[in-house]
């Protein structure tokens, strides 16, 4: 089986973008019990529609249920599982053994084990497989060599993160937000305390720094090895990230995986790897590291708590009509601006000669939050950037 490219879909727009830019599968959260409570997420009708839409493209869709449940959550979960069993996504992603138990006993949906479960060794994988898991998403602390060891010992589907933000701690082993903000980090309430600035003291030494601010993961250089060992899925993190991020990361990794596949084992030249890395650096990021693939995780950006980006996200194409495209605008756009349109086939310049509001009346600006029309017939899901 070829390795799957799995992209985040925090809402319908991002789902369309991910599929348009080459994802083989997407993962989404419903309104119940995902870990991204503050993402848009999908209502039940949207989930049903999404499953149907994604399946219509011949792709897969996984529903995230990866919080660690409290009693009230389990009460809400039962009708949600009954609903999911009706619409049959390709898997649900869980961390909590009690939730897994309910999924396995109340539904026929395959079970994927979340990275929140911190499975880092073949014995952990074996335990989940024995319980009925179809796939295990390994902890981000697992090296590629360990992936090989696990794959050799337990012939099951393994999934690894290849791109995106990373927790400072073992995922699922952090409760800072619970105590600092009254929000449960393991039920979607993480306030990202690891991105904060800390003052530290010890034995006369002092420092103030972003001590736990993990660089983002970028694993393009490890793809070939991962594909060669038969990993089932490469996952891009980021249901809360922008459609631009989803489009860019999905496009680059799609191209990289297709290139590696076509190379049939021949090495990918470093210039090509460098080009992919440069493209991945265009979108807002905290600088990059290879995560835990090579060695123990390091990759902390202790100097800077912010993001770097080579541009700004303008909006996503939501509809096309005649020679115009409707966008939902995130930053001001005016006639005379030059934008870029990120399409699955490349980046195309767009000189904005005119703009129209949703009623097709000419306007001199589209502001943040506005919907309107720009010149050109682009594809739904194409992304405009400045």
């Amino acid at each position: 089986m070829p390795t799957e490219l799995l992209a985040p879909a925090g809402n319908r727009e991002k789902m369309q973008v991910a599929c348009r830019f080459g994802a083989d599968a997407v993962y989404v959260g419903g309104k119940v019990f995902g870990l991204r409570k503050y993402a848009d997420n999908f209502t039940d009708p949207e989930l049903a529609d999404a499953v149907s839409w994604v399946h219509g493209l011949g792709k897969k869709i996984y529903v995230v249920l990866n919080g660690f449940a409290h009693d009230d959550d389990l009460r809400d979960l039962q009708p949600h599982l009954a609903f999911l069993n009706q619409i049959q996504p390709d898997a649900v992603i869980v961390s909590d053994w009690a939730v897994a138990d309910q999924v396995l006993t109340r539904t026929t949906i395959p079970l994927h084990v979340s990275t929140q479960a911190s499975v880092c060794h073949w014995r952990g994988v074996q335990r989940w497989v024995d319980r009925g898991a179809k796939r295990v998403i390994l902890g981000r602390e697992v090296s590629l060599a360990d992936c090989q060891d696990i794959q050799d010992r337990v012939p099951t589907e393994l999934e690894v993160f290849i791109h995106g933000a990373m927790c400072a701690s073992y995922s699922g082993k952090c409760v800072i937000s619970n105590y600092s903000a009254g929000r449960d980090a393991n039920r979607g309430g993480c306030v990202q305390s690891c991105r904060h600035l800390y003052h530290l003291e010890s034995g006369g030494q002092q420092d103030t720094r972003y001590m736990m601010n993990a660089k983002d993961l970028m694993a393009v250089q490890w793809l070939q090895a991962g594909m060669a060992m038969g990993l089932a899925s490469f996952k891009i993190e980021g249901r809360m990230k922008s459609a631009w991020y989803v489009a860019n990361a999905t496009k680059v990794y799609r191209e990289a995986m297709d290139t590696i596949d076509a190379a049939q084992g021949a090495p990918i030249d470093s210039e090509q790897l460098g080009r992919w890395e440069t493209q991945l650096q265009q979108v807002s990021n905290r600088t990059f590291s290879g995560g835990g693939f090579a060695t123990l995780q390091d990759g902390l950006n202790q100097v800077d708590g912010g993001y770097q980006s080579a541009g700004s996200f303008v909006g996503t194409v939501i509809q096309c009509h005649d020679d115009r495209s409707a966008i939902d605008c995130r930053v001001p756009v005016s006639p005379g601006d030059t934008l870029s349109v990120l399409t699955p086939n490349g980046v195309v310049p767009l000189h904005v000669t005119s703009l129209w509001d949703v009623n097709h009346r000419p306007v001199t600006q589209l502001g943040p939050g506005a919907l309107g029309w720009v010149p050109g017939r682009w594809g739904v899901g194409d992304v405009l950037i400045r």
Partner: protein
Amino acid sequence: MTILTSFTHSHERTQHLLSRSVRRIIMDHPSVGYRTFCDTAIPIDDWYAQCVAHDPSVTWVASIDVLLHSRNEAAIGAAISAAIRSGVRWFRIQDVALIDWIRSETDAAIMLAPEVGNHSGAAIDYWMAHVDAQSLSNDVPGSVIQRVTDRHRLEVMVQGPILLQWSQRQYLNGFDQPDVSGYDTEYPGRRLRFWRSAHGTAMLAYFHRCLARDLDALAALNVGYWLVDARGCSDRYLSLALDCYQAPDQGGDVRDLMLALESESGVPQRPGFFRGNGTDQDREVPNSGAMLGVIKEYRAGSHVVMQARANGHTQQAVMAITPTHQVKPLSLGGAVSLTGEPVTTFGCGDWLVLPFQKGVVAKSMVLPL
């Protein structure tokens, strides 16, 4: 009957615990313990053997609280073997991956101490079928514990530092000592503690768990084990803590003991989530699952744009709830598509341009009446 239990990392601490008649002692060792607060140690074989030799009638527990990786497999294997050779009859583990391994080597009992993961009655019940005892996550309130039937197999941490986060990363680089204190600049009054070991870095809360004022409620739960976790704390702290829980009637006034614990540790003593877990109130926006759509654009005097998040029709009676929770009347009558065609029915994702309706601002939820 509830058994008081605590950690040891040194012979001095062991003697202290034995002198206070603690009969269940967890043996910590830096090769397999991520927060032993002890970075030099004798070989684990010797450590376990010497502990047991202090008093074989004590229940000695081998603690293996690192997560299992291939790189620490040898150390964990050595710990399991050493414990077996020393006649240790209990293991205390964090990673469920160790259960089958230990079971394949010995019939010793296993206590699962997952830090995070056994929060619900169902999860606790699930693990009861797989291990002999469980140490509960610290954010499980007494009301949940009360619903568990096998409470005599549960351990509750009654006193000690609360682990907030554990990372494999070495994020205290540049500091000479492994023990660092500090604060998040967004919460400057909260003094945190960090500990670096070969396994990574641990972060401890700005207060200690202290259930000294909740002894009646605690006793009523009738759990099997009370854990006084004094790892990284002084012997005096341990003594004061034992005074609180071992013989509360003889150890002096609880308020005085708590003040002394606060003074000794430098951090407040609080019950944490034992009395209730406020994070349970932080749930999804009510009714968000039932919404028909969301307002994406509000152009005063001109139009409102809704994106549908369910199937529906424009004759439906609906209302809008604004981001500030104001209820506004709304009509879907007169809706047109982005291309100007009249809309009577719609599906998920469809865009509806509506005549202007005052107050139905962007991000309002549209709900059926």
